[in-house]
């Protein structure tokens, strides 16, 4: 099965091949008018007629895939078979993330993060694995949801404690030519060490961000608040840079 990128390449080549042929036909037509040469009867078309843009529609519709939407870190999808790798540098949390397109609307998400600027790898560092669905991925308005599970590691003086983590996220944005604006809401559950079985605490994040695409590169910035039930809400930020592979 051809990828979207391969099909796009074929279409571009086809258009490029068609364009000079059309030009030659027009020139011949002009010469024919001047020299009064007999016009040969048109040969029957071997393929269905072209559309106005010169694109030829063939094949099975079931293999049709929508075009890849504008690239984004915050908003999916990455595109089937494609990948977006991104770096976050922020306060408190920084990390590396990979979004691998499993289907036109579904990405596999891998993420590793730490409180790098604050404490290096000395406090909560962790990894997550999950899925991001982007049911609204065409057009100006885009939205998606993500669910990941993972482990956080908290080093003590002579110990290393691991904490299970589950994170759910919803993101919606508006895609303009110049930039993509988005907002997101996350909720995270962490297993705590209750003496009678695991207990869970939760926190959340509410953020707004902007991204700009430069070819295969994506740069962005985000401001968000870290909400913690029973504790103060803390303002956070992160700078983002991504690369579409």
């Amino acid at each position, binding site marked *: 099965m051809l990828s979207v990128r391969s099909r796009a390449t074929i279409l571009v080549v086809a258009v490029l091949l068609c364009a000079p042929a059309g030009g030659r036909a027009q020139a011949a037509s002009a010469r024919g008018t001047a020299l009064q040469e007999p016009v040969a009867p048109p040969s029957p078309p071997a393929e269905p007629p072209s559309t106005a843009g010169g694109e030829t529609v063939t094949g099975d519709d079931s293999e049709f895939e929508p075009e890849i939407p504008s690239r984004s870190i915050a908003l999916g999808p990455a595109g089937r078979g494609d990948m977006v790798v991104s770096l976050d540098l922020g306060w*408190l949390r920084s990390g590396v993330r990979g979004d691998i397109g499993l289907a036109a609307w579904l990405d596999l998400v891998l993420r590793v993060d730490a409180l790098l600027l*604050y404490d290096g790898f000395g406090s909560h560092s962790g990894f997550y694995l999950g899925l991001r669905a982007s049911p609204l991925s065409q057009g100006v308005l885009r939205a998606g949801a993500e669910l990941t599970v993972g482990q956080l590691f908290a080093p003590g*003086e002579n110990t290393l404690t691991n*904490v299970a983590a589950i994170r759910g996220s919803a993101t919606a944005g508006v895609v303009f030519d110049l930039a993509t604006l988005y907002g997101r809401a996350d909720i995270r559950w962490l297993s705590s060490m*209750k003496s009678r079985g695991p207990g869970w*605490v939760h926190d959340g994040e509410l953020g707004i961000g902007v991204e700009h695409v430069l070819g295969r590169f994506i740069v962005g910035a985000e401001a968000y608040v870290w909400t913690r039930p*029973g504790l103060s809400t*803390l303002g956070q930020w992160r700078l983002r840079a991504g690369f579409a592979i």
Partner: protein
Amino acid sequence: MPGSRSSVVAIVLAVAACANRDVETTPFRIDASRSDGVSFVVDVPAFYRFEGTARLLEPTVLLVQGASLPDTPPFDVTLRFRSDAPGGVVFPPQLDGSAVTVVLVSDPTGIDPEGEPLRYPALRIATGAAPDLRHQFAMVDAAYAGAGTNIVTIGPVDPTDDLPFFRVIADWTEFEPAECGPVYYDALEVLGDDERFTLSRGERRELSIGAPEATSWKVLHVLSWHRHGTCGDQAEAWTQFAAWR
């Protein structure tokens, strides 16, 4: 354009702000003063036990009259803690006019979370006289080293049929991003004769212990935490709770 340049600098600084936040702790600040002017604080941590008659002067001020220690003439002791104690803790009103047995712990090296002197880490009051004691009140306000502890200076070592057992369980899920490293919120485990539970910060719960007709204990866990990185004289770990009938 100096004005616009300074604005840009201000914005950059605002974005680059890496805010810290320390845990807010309000110690009970147990204090004890003797009518004979002798201090309970000596060169080493000490454990005093004296009997007397209690007079409730204020909700958080208790006068114990006719107290005595070996080789000393009787004296009065004024016990107090801050009037705006967290959780609204006060001395139980049933102490007023009762014969009481007081256990008071003093520590010449005791500090509060900021490293300021805090010489009385624990207090326990029972009505009656040994061996027929009925504990009514316990308060702990203590810094210690490490992460979590089974040695809470209020004793006893094991649960009794009259007084619950307390210990601090180190937890790693919630923290404050303090200046010199994260401060993790810990949990307080409470054991009765047939009941055990864990309290997070600010939580309170009743506990039945001893005879069925005995008045239940009310336990308030104000706050416990441990640091992963300290500045100057800061306490490494802290626990603060109160229990009363």
